């Protein structure tokens, strides 16, 4: 159970990271994140099943496509309404609706839509059998975190990311184009969403409704952790992940979604800026 809690936490962290990245950098809450996750799953499925692409190639292509999609979503739609919070939320949410409901209309429902695992088999840890895929999720979570850290601290573009997150006008005067960087952050955020999809989805089937679930999970982890704070996301995903696993084990799996809700309400009542939110965020959100 300890292991499963850890895995659940890693899943949540992977789901939330992309959303968190986009929000933290450009301030755009990407409500189409869940839709990108699901569509990425179907794209990967299509590439593997229909075009017989090799597994890793299909995954890479999916992630690339999602990143390009996010990039152009920003360039074509969000750029025009940047800073108008209501319009941003409505537009991204509408995009997500279009994508998910279109998939539902075409009829991508059923058990045959599932991605193959990377490596089949399971190992025994502390008297519990765990699929290698689940262990890989933990591994990938750590790798992504590390890569993100290196990216934002040691590359030119990563530093530009942090620049516009901190002070957009100053970074503009230093020759950083906020719109371009924000588009990139949107692209990378969507790419991370697709990455989460190809890593996590092999555990189950791809369903349209999971798009909303992923969005909800990402939102709750981000709210509890403090939006825009990567470390907060990690801590929050551990808390919610273990809380969900405990609830599923001892009470009923129906209640797992309630856990996030209770966590959010509790956190907001006690610490409105989230677990590790900074003072600046406190001003923004309260």
């Amino acid at each position, binding site marked *: 159970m300890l292991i499963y809690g850890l895995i659940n936490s890693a899943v949540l962290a992977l789901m939330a990271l992309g959303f968190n990245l986009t929000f933290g950098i450009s301030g755009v*809450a990407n*409500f189409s994140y869940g839709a990108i996750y699901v569509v990425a799953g179907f794209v990967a499925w299509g590439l593997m099943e229909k075009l017989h692409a090799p597994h890793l190639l299909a995954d890479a292509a999916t992630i690339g496509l999602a990143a390009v999609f996010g990039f152009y979503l920003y360039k074509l*739609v969000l750029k*025009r*309404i940047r800073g*108008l*919070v*209501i*319009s*941003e*939320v*409505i*537009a991204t*949410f*509408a*995009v*997500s*609706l*279009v994508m998910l*409901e*279109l998939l*539902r*209309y075409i009829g991508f429902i059923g058990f045959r839509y599932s991605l193959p695992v990377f490596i089949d088999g399971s190992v025994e840890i502390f008297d519990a059998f765990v699929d290698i895929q689940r262990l890989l999720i933990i591994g990938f979570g750590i790798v992504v975190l590390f890569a993100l850290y290196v990216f934002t601290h040691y590359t030119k573009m990563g530093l530009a990311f942090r620049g516009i997150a901190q002070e957009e006008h100053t970074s503009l005067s230093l020759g950083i184009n906020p719109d371009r960087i924000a588009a990139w952050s949107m692209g990378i955020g969507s790419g991370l969403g697709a990455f989460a999809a190809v890593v996590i989805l092999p555990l189950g089937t791809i369903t349209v409704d999971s798009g*909303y679930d992923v969005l*909800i999970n990402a*939102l*709750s982890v981000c*709210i509890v952790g403090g*939006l825009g704070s990567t470390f907060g996301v990690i801590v929050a995903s551990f808390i919610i992940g273990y809380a969900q696993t405990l609830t599923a084990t001892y009470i*009923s799996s*129906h*209640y797992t*979604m*309630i856990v*996030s*809700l209770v966590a*959010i*309400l509790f956190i*907001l*009542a006690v610490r*409105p800026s989230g677990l590790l939110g900074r003072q600046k965020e406190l001003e*923004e*959100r*309260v």
Partner: protein
Amino acid sequence: MSEAAAGNFRKERIARGIKARSDDIYALVSYKEMWYLLFPRLVPIVAVAVIALIVPLYWKKVVVTTCIFAMLAVSWDFLSSCGMLCLGQALFFGMGSFAAGGLNHYLHLPLWATIPAGTVLGGLVSTIILLPVIRLRGIYFAMVTLMLPLMLMRLIEATRILGGTEGLTGLSPFPSEWVEVVLVLAAMWCALFGLRRLIASDFGLIFVSIRDNDRATMACGINIYAKKAQALFIGSCIGAFCGAFMTHSYMFTGMPVFALEFSILPIAASAVGGIGTLAGPLMGAMILVPLSEVLREFGSLRIVFYGLILVVCVVALPEGIFHYLSRKYNEMERWVRID
């Protein structure tokens, strides 16, 4: 346009004389001014009433649905005028629906008691649920309100309270469809004009100031959280009324009342009609709901259409239809020479 292109002229937009004359008490000087003011208000009321009463039975139901969504949209717009961006009108709708349905199903209260009770009870419960998050603003409030109805759906599924997945059926219906239509029309116009009057009053001014700058409002010594809670209660009561009304119209309440559609359509209507005008969202709903009825055969593709309309409207027509029409009605354009 060719003149403008030559660079010697520009387009100027000024208020019509009659607009300026009828702005104040001077509207009473002649029938012309009074008619100018009454025309845009009276014509829709009469037109909707006539349409509602002459159409066949099936379309009467559509009229009821349209009015319900129009009210939801108006209440959404009211909340957004108070600085609360709500993505979960379904929460209010569902609460009102379950309150009315539960009272009717378990306590066998008659219809004229359950609808008012459901309205107040639903509004109260929604407000209490949202009290911890009332301090949040903008996008954070939007996130929580988006999640709440979806999670409540899970809660009902998990705990099997209030009928669980099957819902409560066999609730008492309206005595006749005439009562239903007249009631819903009256409620809709009351909601619209009541809220417009409220927003224009000193009390409503505080709501608008919270949206415009909550820090400054706080600095004026106003407890913005109490005010926000009041606004939330007003908005959610309207939403809960819609839920209670629909419950008796369909004689059913259950998990679908928390469906995403009740959250999305009001927002779509507001985006199409014009956010911040109250009348605009109503107009948007009047366009979108009958349109969706025509598109019914496409099934879930309807929501795709909504989404597309939303994106296009938000990006290309940010002001909405209502602003456009009111500009045409109140202002005139002319070319003036640039010196």
